[in-house]
């Protein structure tokens, strides 16, 4: 399935946002979604940092589709220039038309570790369990979300909003997030170790290396590692 690349999953969600304004407030549902997502940027870290196995994800509002408005340079363009007697409608008829969405959509696009199951169920359950309050904050403004009260409802809802990916390209790794973060920690620490131990005697380096491995605990994925979303050293 194209949503999957190895153990990595590319989830593409389009949730229709309610039309109109919030009852008793002078703000459209879509703008409320936008404000709340913008407010997530002001927090010390993203609420998504709490969702297990999230590699990268984004949220935005699709207000409308894009209308292509450039001339094509095709034959009708040329004809209408050379032959003024040819009606201009010939040229205009081949111009792209303007599409207009009937609703605005919340786009949630996420890359995460799904494991061998190749389904988003466990991830979505983890998301619900970790941040269901924050999910409500955003998705309560979408059509159909009033039916969502628990993790099972949430998985069902999100699958209704899911689009199938035509091609998912994984240019990174598809390890569990804990392994990626531990590996980054090891890379950072070992780089410093290599610098600090240049030119020392064999016996000293060996002793220091043993101490280094004792300190870094390469097989312990929970401790001595980077936390999800870590943005400073």
């Amino acid at each position, binding site marked *: 399935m194209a949503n999957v690349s190895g153990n990595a999953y590319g989830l593409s969600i389009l949730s229709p946002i309610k039309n109109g304004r919030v009852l008793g407030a002078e703000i459209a549902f879509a703008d409320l979604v936008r404000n709340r997502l913008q407010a997530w940027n002001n927090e010390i870290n993203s609420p998504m940092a709490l969702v297990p196995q999230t590699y990268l994800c984004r*949220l935005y509002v699709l207000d409308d589709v894009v209308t292509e408005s450039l001339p094509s340079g095709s034959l009708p363009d040329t004809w209408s220039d050379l032959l003024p007697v040819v009606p201009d409608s010939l040229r205009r008829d081949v111009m792209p038309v303007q599409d207009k969405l*009937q609703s605005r959509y919340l786009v949630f696009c996420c890359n995460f570790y799904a494991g061998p199951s190749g389904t988003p169920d466990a991830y979505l359950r983890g998301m619900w369990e970790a941040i269901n309050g924050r999910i409500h904050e955003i998705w309560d403004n979408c059509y159909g979300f009033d039916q969502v009260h628990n993790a099972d409802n949430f998985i069902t809802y999100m699958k209704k909003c899911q*689009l199938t990916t*035509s091609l998912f390209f994984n240019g990174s790794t598809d390890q569990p997030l804990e392994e990626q973060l531990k590996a980054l920690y*090891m890379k950072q620490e070992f780089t410093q170790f290599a610098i600090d131990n240049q030119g020392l005697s064999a016996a000293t380096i*060996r002793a220091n290396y043993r101490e280094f491995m004792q300190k870094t605990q390469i097989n312990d994925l929970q401790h001595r590692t980077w936390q999800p979303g870590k943005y400073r050293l």
Partner: protein
Amino acid sequence: MSNIAGKAYAMNVITPVRWYTAWVNKLFFWVALKRPSTLSGLITLSLIHYARWVIIGRNQFPHLSPEQPKEKLKYSYMLFLSNFNGSWDQYVDSFTFAIPGGLDLFWKWNLRYSKSVALTPFHNYIQYNQLETIHYYNAYPLATSNDVKSAKNVSEMLADFNKTIDAGGDDEFLKRYQTLLRGLQHDLGAMHPTPIISMSAYQVEKRERWHAGKLDQYEEQQHG
């Protein structure tokens, strides 16, 4: 708005495609899936974390409730979503220079697609069709895609090296250690936060002040 999270940039591009030709794009994607060698050009673009193409049929926009008006669209749409390192220009240019032919197949017959060469119309096309991200989260803002890949290599090689740590004398250990370093010379390197050059710079600055315990004072200055 924040298209940037640490070293990653989130690009969203939506382009219309005639509903009766969208199968052509789907076919190219299907071939790319079945024959991964066709993606070798993309793999050389090691600055990409993850990227995807999603074709939304004109009748496939999710409809969740009877209250939601149904879409009446003339075109289908192709969404391109990418997570990459570096600047917008570097990324778009690298696409043009590394895989121009593949790019033209993926966007085949999308309306007013300029083709990937020449560069200026291609830049204009992507810019015109790009949508801004509001919230972007990255589990490892300090790392590039190459860091993630090389970290896996470092971790695996260290785990292997550990199996031999007690074998032989110190000089033998040193030889193995030096071999390890030579093997990892392309993978080692310290990671640091990027300079604050992003649309979320305000947030980054605010976080820095929070960590320094000066956020309240900063807020007071901002709001008088």
